[in-house]
């Protein structure tokens, strides 16, 4: 019960974060001064807007995509915990959801680390603006790999369970 609540809380938290970032992006085109004071605004990225609007929009899109993906990961974790029955935990449904979580975490890594580093490189090359490359994200690759391995072990467990059930 507690873990389900925590997962739901995570999904809601990241949804709010994603929503506020979308609001900041939209508001920055209407009223830049007001947008600067909104929740979760990154002033480093906001300063890019003065130099190059395309790079600013691209950076915001990357940040929004990461938040949206994190919200979705938490939602899938919540859905997994709802489906999970501790009496019969080995089911194909749970395995599929675990695999989906692994791929979603990989996407989080792609957007928050891989694409971000490429973005920083081109931003520095074209505009000379140096953004810090320390946006956390590399750990998502590690977690994705672990979740994927667990999902594959789960898959084998289900196969063994099925074989056992069909042994007379």
């Amino acid at each position: 019960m507690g873990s389900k609540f925590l997962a739901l809380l995570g999904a809601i938290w990241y949804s709010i974060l994603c929503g506020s970032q979308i609001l900041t992006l939209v508001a920055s085109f209407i009223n830049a001064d007001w947008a600067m004071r909104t929740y979760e605004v990154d002033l480093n990225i906001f300063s890019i807007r003065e130099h190059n609007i395309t790079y600013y929009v691209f950076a915001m899109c990357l940040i929004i995509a990461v938040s949206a993906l994190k919200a979705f990961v938490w939602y899938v974790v919540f859905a997994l915990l709802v489906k999970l029955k501790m009496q019969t935990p080995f089911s194909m449904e749970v395995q599929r959801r675990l695999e989906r979580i692994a791929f979603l975490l990989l996407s989080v890594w792609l957007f928050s680390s891989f694409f971000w580093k490429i973005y920083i490189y081109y931003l520095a090359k074209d505009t000379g603006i140096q953004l810090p490359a320390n946006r956390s994200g590399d750990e998502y690759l590690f977690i994705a790999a672990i979740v994927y391995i667990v999902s594959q072990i789960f898959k084998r467990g289900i196969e063994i369970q099925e074989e056992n059930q069909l042994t007379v």
Partner: protein
Amino acid sequence: MPIIVNLDVMMAKRKMSLNELSEKVGLTLANLSILKTGKAKAVRFSTLEAICEALDCQPADILEYKKEE
């Protein structure tokens, strides 16, 4: 699967119902049904022995190998 279970043929020859066989062998109807319909992935020697004893037959009368085309 190339292994065919001829349990229904032997049961018909011995004029034995699934319920009767289930009682004699000590297997549940669900498990016997899995075996009869060919869904089983493995058969224990103890189960095979009990079925052979109940139907008075040999394992080869129940199990048959047919090459897949």
